Structures are given as C-alpha cells and as structure tokens.
C-alpha cells in the first residue's frame, strides 16, 4: 500500500469518527409516533410565557413553568401540541418553539381529565433532579402513552 492509500484510509476513518460522534437531532421516526416529554426546569427560559412547546424532528417537549404547572396549563399545552402535530406532522430539519403566553377556559376540565393530568404532574414532581439540557437542573419524564 502506498502513502496515498494510507492517507485515504486514515481520512475515511476520521470522517466516520466525526460522523458517528456528532450530536444530531433525532430523525426518521414516523409522524405522530414521536414521543412527548414533559420538562419542569428549576429555571424557566427567559420568555414571557406560561409554558413553551419545543418541537424537534423526532420528539416534542412540553416545558412547564414551575410556578404555573397545573392541570390547565398542561391540558392547553398538550391540546395545542396535538393540533400542531396534526397540522404539521413533519418538521423537516427545522424546530419549532411555541411560547404560550396565556389562556382562558370556556369550560372547566372534566373531573377525570383533571385527575389524570394531576397524576401526571404529581409523577413529574417526584422524579429526581436531573439536567434538562441547557436549561439546567430540573425534572422531566416521558408523557405516558406517547
């Protein structure tokens, strides 16, 4: 093997190493099957919002504000997320950030619906502290059934 071939082989190996170790967003999951995660960071992003939806290829994240993480907020966030997922199931290689600044109910949550959402939030609050990406310390969990 001559020197050129060795260099070529070494470069191929280097390219493979760079490609394999690069941190890439998840892609390739079927629309509608992307998991939903709920995050409760200790420090909410510096945005005037009650909750923020974060849609990325392959997953959706509901980021809740600790002082406002009630069943109504989660209900509105999941309802809006459901609508956006049905309207735009494929994001391509782009992400969407949806700050929810406020909401007002036209009718109350049904008792069973409220109980289910409170159960989810209770589960979230009992999760141990972990790192929620660049938002810092917080709690998170996959949304049940997503």
């Amino acid at each position: 093997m001559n020197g050129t071939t060795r260099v070529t082989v070494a470069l191929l190996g280097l390219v493979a190493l760079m490609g394999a170790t690069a941190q890439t967003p998840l892609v390739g999951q079927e629309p509608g099957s992307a998991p939903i995660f709920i995050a409760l960071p200790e420090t909410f992003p510096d945005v005037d919002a009650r909750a923020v939806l974060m849609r990325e290829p392959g997953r959706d994240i509901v980021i809740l504000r600790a002082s406002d993480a009630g069943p109504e907020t989660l209900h509105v966030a999941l309802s809006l997320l459901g609508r956006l997922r049905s309207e735009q199931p494929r994001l391509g290689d782009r992400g969407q950030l949806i700050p929810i600044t406020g909401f007002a109910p036209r009718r109350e949550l049904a008792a069973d619906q409220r109980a289910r959402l409170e159960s989810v939030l209770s589960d979230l609050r009992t999760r141990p502290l972990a790192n929620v990406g660049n938002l810092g310390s917080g709690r998170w969990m996959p949304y049940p059934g997503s």
Partner: protein
Amino acid sequence: MSPAHCFRAALATMLVATACSEEPITSLPAADLETPVDLALAFPRLTAQTLFQGEVVELAPTSGPARDFSEDVPDDDDVSQIYGAGTSVGFTADYAYSNGRHTYTGNLGKVETTARVSFDGAQIGSQFAFQEEYTPFLLDFGSVKEILAEAYVFIDQDCGLRVDGDSNHYAGWQWFLGSTAPNWGPAGMSTQAFPPVSQPACREQEEDADGGYSGGSESGGGEGWVTCWYLVTYDPYSGEIFDVDFLFCDDVGG
C-alpha cells in the same frame, strides 16, 4: 501495511466510533425510560426582544415640514417636542391592535406601544411594538415628523376578547445613532387607550349569565380554550432563529 491490514484498521476505527457515539437519550422508547437521566435539550437563543415587532429607520432630511415657531408651545422645553400623542386600540377581522403615534421635533423619535388582549377578564397575551426614527443631526433643522408604531395580535375570535393598550412617546436630539451617543433635550410622555375596546360577548357567556344555557358556539367563539401563542422556527442544530410568527390568539379546543 498490506491492504488487508488497512481494511481491518479502517473497520476497527468505524466500529469503535459507532460504539462510542452517543444519541440523545430521548431516542429511547418512552416506556424504557424508568431510570432518571439527563434530558438532551438545547433551548435556542430566544429573548424577549425576539418577540418584539418594530424597526429602527433612518429618515431623509426632508422627512417633514419645517417647524412653525409661531405655534404656541411650552417655553420650558422647546428644544424637542411631542405633539398630539395618543394610543388607540381596536379590532379588525384578523387582528387586535394598539396604535401609538405622535408628532415631534428633534432628530430622534421613538414610540413604543403594547397591545394587551384579555378574555373574560384575564389577560392572555400582549404584544410589544416599537418604531424608532433617526435623522442625521446636521441635516435636521427642526422639521416636524410623525411617528407611529402598531402592535398586532392576530386572532380568529369574533367574540369575548378585549384589547387595551398604552404607549411611550419620545423625542430628542442625538449626535449620532446609538445608545451611547450624546443626547440632549429629551422629551417623553405616556398615553393609554381609553376606553379599551371589546368584542361582543360570546353567546355562551351571555346565556351563562342568565344561568341556563351551556352549549353551542354559534357566535363563532368555539368551545375550547382561548390561547395565545407565538410560533418561532429555529435550527435545532445551531439554535439560530429563522422566523417568528407573532402573537396569535385562537381557540385551541379540548
């Protein structure tokens, strides 16, 4: 080194690289995540300013008529002046707005306005907008200019919403454009829209007030939750913001 050795070396490199690669933990099926671990998440660089509507524009020197110094203006602050400042609010079929405007003398004018949308007494969204105008100092000889900023909140509701708004008005002189530039003779004031403007009450609200009717949405209000939200598109790789769809309030359902 023989070709076979080279091939093995390359293969080994790729195998090691693949084994050491790390995907975001959230790629695992949700049900398998029983053990708490860190969430791989890169929140983009979003600031409050990203969600503002507005611009800074440089005016040509002949942007307004010359000031008429025979006008009756206060003596204590006649270097730069604000005239006819006001805020008005209202609805169109597609949006609610707050409109802040004034006339001024000075080579720097600015108006900021905020539209606040409420439903059933609860504020659910606000949109901030500004307009800043600058005329090169040496070319401005006291011309009178008008400035206007309008904050829009896009809606699909035709009942139940209320909009109110307020504005901050500013005029002054500045050597050059920039926050650190020497300035003098600033004048400022605030105005508020009065009264706020409301859409007609939704039918279910009217009927509920009478204590009976609890269904129907013939008045166009829907029957879910009136929700205000922005839509920001970004690059998940770099966090760069591509586009902002400004505040929108609609019925999210549910």
